[in-house]
């Protein structure tokens, strides 16, 4: 494995970093994770180029602070580097795995820092209305609209439970207290809401043109 790493690092020095990155552009996300497990830094850079923006957007939504969001993404990618060998690359989507790491890190930070605002859903960034970005890919805009459309079709109490948990970083017991309902009710709303959202997204995937992987 050292031989491979040194082969990968021994690219001609005349090539600049952009050219180095192009070497990995055609590989699947999962192949990149495999190379990361062998110590290939450029493969990690390519993964970051594909998933980093979504990762940062997610961390920013939860943490509401650019510096903290960057810290969460940085720590999650370091974890990708350290644990790439445990990832079952032949069977799983790498982007899903990376985003679970980013979200877990962001939620851990928001709970530790007690950075949550009193009412995150009144903030425009938490109401599912992210500001329009002119420089993002069309498929990303399409996908965001598709998910927001699906969220709007959920019963209000289910959507509220999902958004406060996933974007607000609230635990189930915190939500029960905040909303003044039994813990069991929150658990049921979350399960029903996520199940229903999955169905709605499956339905719209069949009719839409969802880009299946974060390949560039």
């Amino acid at each position, binding site marked *: 494995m050292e031989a491979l790493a040194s*082969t990968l690092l021994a*690219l001609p020095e005349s090539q600049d970093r952009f050219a180095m990155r192009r070497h990995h552009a055609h590989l699947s996300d999962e192949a990149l994770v*495999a190379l990361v497990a062998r110590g290939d830094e450029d493969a990690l850079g390519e993964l970051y180029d594909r998933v980093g923006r979504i990762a940062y957007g997610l961390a920013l939504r939860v943490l509401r602070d650019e510096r903290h969001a960057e810290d969460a993404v940085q720590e999650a990618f370091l974890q990708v580097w350290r644990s790439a060998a445990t990832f079952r690359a032949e*069977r799983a989507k790498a982007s899903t795995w990376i985003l679970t790491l980013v979200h*877990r890190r962001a939620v851990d930070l928001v709970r530790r820092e007690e950075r949550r605002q009193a009412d995150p859903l009144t903030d425009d960034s938490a109401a599912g209305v992210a500001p329009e970005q002119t420089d993002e890919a069309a498929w990303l805009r399409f996908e965001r609209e598709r998910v927001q459309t699906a969220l709007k079709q959920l019963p209000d109490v289910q959507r509220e439970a999902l958004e406060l*948990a996933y974007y607000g970083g609230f635990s189930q017991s915190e939500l029960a207290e905040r909303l003044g309902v039994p813990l069991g009710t929150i658990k049921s709303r979350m399960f029903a809401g996520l199940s229903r959202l999955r169905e709605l997204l499956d339905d719209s995937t069949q009719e839409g043109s969802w880009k299946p992987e974060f390949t560039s």
Partner: protein
Amino acid sequence: MEAGIHELTAGYALDALDPEERSAYEAHLAGCERCREELASFWETTEALAVAASGPAPSPALRDRILADVRAEPPQNVVPLEPRRRRVAPVLGAVAAVAAVAALALGIWGSRLSSDLGETRSALARARAASAIVADPSARTVDLAEGVGSLVVDQDGRAALVLMNLGPAPAGKTYQAWIIEDDNPIPAGIFPGEDGVDVVLVDGDVADGEVVAVTVEQAGGAETPNLPPVVASDPV
């Protein structure tokens, strides 16, 4: 009780369980295939929620900081000597634990899907199988005597070629891999070739002393190799 813990799958996928329930759920997950499948499926849904949160791009400096972090890591953290033990070590932090659980759950879910893989997805399946071999820390790396790159062989003899800058095969031609035992070449799959890094699954098992080679053949492949090879490994 069983139904109750199953319902926690949604809260776990959303990172919304309280610490005691999170631990109890992870313990339950190890023995419950139904929950592993459900969790992998819910994680796909939370990935959609993540995409929906997308907004402005991060500072360009973030990429540099991440790569600087990685360069500062001791290499033994990347390829652990005892990966299976490391996966369940109690010293793992919360993020490392979710990494391991994710690997477990996604792996199980994927194995169910993989039985449905049709012809159209076989190329993707092959790419993923090759990636798995390259990612396996117990696999051996064998140098190439001809060509640039490496041959990676796992403990069961499954092998993948990691090739640098081979380039696409000429029009009307294909690359073909071979496993050569003594002087007897066995066809081991065809592939189009790529600029940059290419990770190619070798069909068939590679035993000690055998050589893996690549030749250029007519489109569709050949029964006997067109010599000389463009890539040849050292004996495994």
